[in-house]
């Protein structure tokens, strides 16, 4: 067995105190300086976000840098980037659960929380980037007295269905997984006030065996459902571009290429969040070196798939014989307006993950943290390359133009980063960061394996 996934053999009680203790340890998070600074910055950026939303809704999308032909820019880049980050959480908690990758148990709740908060940022943009956001409800088939309905041949109602389904299923999966832990917190929180609050959310859980039986069946089924869902959601997001006619958009590689890119940038964000949280809450015994290494390995794998996606894009552009495709892939992107972001994407998405071939690369925590930030920067500029650069150099040379963001664009993007951090900090403070009941189950399984191995060794 390679490195253990739980160091030392903590008893259930010790596990309980350590993992639930993150919510009420002394000194409480609230008093620590770094927490107050982080919370202050995140709160300020969230305020900036909502005031810029109001300003955009009341004044018009003209405040952004969008123009004709580049009608989509920061709005849709941020949407695809955030929803991409969201997919690693479900990948870890659902797909790795089906593959019985037991190391996923200690990081699945943190990843799933990251998914929820990322999808909340993503879901903001499809409504905010509309010219008339107050009619966004026309995307849903409500009984309208105008007897007009959404047009389901377009990729945007698919997006609406996919993103809302994804958010709902992730929320249910995350909450279902947390009910037993909330029950533990209801029973062992230090103050009565906290226990009443946790009790409200624990739905009266007390670990009845018959309920566990249904619970485990539901958990397995949800994991089974979430797996095709996460693959379909980012394929649908890629269909926003794949079903279009724009040179550089309509290629069949997009669904797998976008899903791989999503999981790639998702794992980068998991690493970005996991490394500091592990240090703050000293979870080294449950989030061991093996977890970090596995995340790095999966980042490398998905990074290579993304690199393959780029190669197919260039090859198909040349192979199609269509001048506008060739010009887009071979001339417009590397040398046209916005070329620096193209090269940034290539460096960060293709070269940086190659560090993870070496063990030192996969285990040096500081290197990993830096690499994860670069990868997410690279994935953002890849979306910029796909969306904005393709629209800048389209079919008719007479309508070639260039795009530049405005301060409202940048403010909104930083605002979403702030709002995401705010939600994540609140999650760290109030909810158990690691899935306690699953860790206990894991510990007991490991013990059974050890006993069976010894029994087999004696025979």
């Amino acid at each position: 067995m390679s490195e253990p996934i739980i160091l030392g053999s903590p008893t259930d009680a010790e596990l309980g105190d350590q993992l639930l203790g993150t919510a009420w340890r002394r000194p409480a998070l609230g008093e620590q300086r770094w927490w107050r600074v982080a919370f202050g910055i995140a709160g300020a950026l969230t305020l900036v976000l909502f005031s810029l939303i109001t300003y955009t809704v009341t004044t018009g999308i003209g405040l952004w840098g969008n123009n004709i032909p580049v009608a989509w820019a920061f709005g849709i880049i941020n949407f695809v980037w955030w929803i991409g980050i969201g997919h690693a959480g479900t990948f870890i908690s659902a797909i790795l659960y089906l593959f019985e990758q037991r190391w996923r148990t200690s990081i699945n709740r943190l990843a799933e929380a990251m998914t929820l908060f990322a999808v909340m940022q993503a879901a903001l943009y499809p409504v905010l980037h509309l010219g008339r956001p107050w009619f966004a409800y026309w995307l849903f088939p409500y009984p309208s007295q105008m007897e007009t309905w959404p047009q389901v041949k377009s990729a945007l109602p698919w997006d609406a269905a996919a993103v809302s389904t994804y958010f709902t299923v992730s929320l249910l999966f995350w909450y279902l997984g947390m009910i037993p832990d909330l029950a533990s917190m209801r029973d062992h929180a230090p103050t009565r006030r906290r226990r009443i609050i946790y009790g409200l959310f624990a739905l009266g859980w007390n670990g009845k065996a018959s309920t566990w039986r249904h619970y485990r069946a539901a958990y397995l089924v949800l994991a089974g459902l979430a797996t095709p869902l996460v693959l379909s959601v980012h394929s649908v997001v890629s269909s926003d571009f794949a079903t279009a006619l724009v040179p550089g958009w309509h290629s069949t590689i997009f669904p797998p290429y976008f899903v791989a890119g999503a999981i790639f940038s998702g794992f980068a964000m998991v690493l970005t969040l996991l490394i500091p949280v592990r240090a703050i809450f000293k979870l080294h015994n449950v989030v061991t070196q093996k977890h970090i290494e596995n995340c790095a390995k999966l980042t490398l794998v998905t990074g290579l798939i993304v690199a393959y996606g780029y190669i197919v894009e260039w090859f198909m552009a040349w192979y199609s014989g269509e001048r506008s495709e060739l010009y887009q892939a071979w001339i417009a992107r590397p040398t046209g307006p916005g070329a620096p972001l193209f090269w940034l994407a290539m460096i960060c998405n293709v070269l940086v993950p190659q560090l993870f071939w070496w063990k030192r690369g996969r285990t040096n925590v500081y290197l990993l943290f830096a690499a994860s930030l670069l990868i997410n920067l690279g994935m953002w500029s890849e979306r910029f390359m796909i969306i904005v650069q393709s629209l800048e150099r389209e079919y008719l040379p007479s309508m070639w133009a260039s795009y530049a963001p405005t301060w409202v664009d940048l403010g909104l993007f930083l605002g979403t980063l702030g709002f995401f951090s705010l939600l994540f900090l609140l999650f760290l403070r109030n909810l158990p960061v690691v899935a306690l009941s699953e860790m206990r189950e894991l510990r007991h399984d490991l013990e059974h394996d050890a006993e069976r191995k010894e029994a087999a060794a004696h025979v």
Partner: protein
Amino acid sequence: MSERLLAEFPDEHAIAGAIRALRETDHRVLDAYTPFASHEVEDALARRPSRLPFAVFVGGMCGAGGAYFLQWYLVAHLYPLVVGGRPPHFPVAFVIITFEMGVLFASLTAVIATLVVGRLVRLTDDVQGTAGFETATRDRFWLAVMSHGPGEPLRELLGKLGASRVETPEVA
């Protein structure tokens, strides 16, 4: 007259042994309360596997079928506008929302079924108030047993089977 007792066991093996032992007697084993989903206890109780997945399948199919019908009814029947030279009824385009709604309704069915069947939409229940019962969500394993006759003989039997504590459930 029969009496209900709650016994606390220090670990998995103890409670599993006790359950197997009690099944031979004519005392009725009501339910076990464990801090995590322990396989041993489950095997010992030997209850029917949960039929929840079947309900989820039905929920999923209803969601998918309903979504496809709704799309066809609205887009191809009520107001069959032609876009992009595509015929109003265009099954290829309906597939995605059908799949998404199938997954959504399946997931909703799964969670709602769990809450309903597990009778989870509550804040407290009959055993919650028993003294010391909070260890059920920490590291101890509790067993609820209905005694056949008076409670006393069951109490000793549980003691012999390794129960570290036996309580009568408080009806708060």
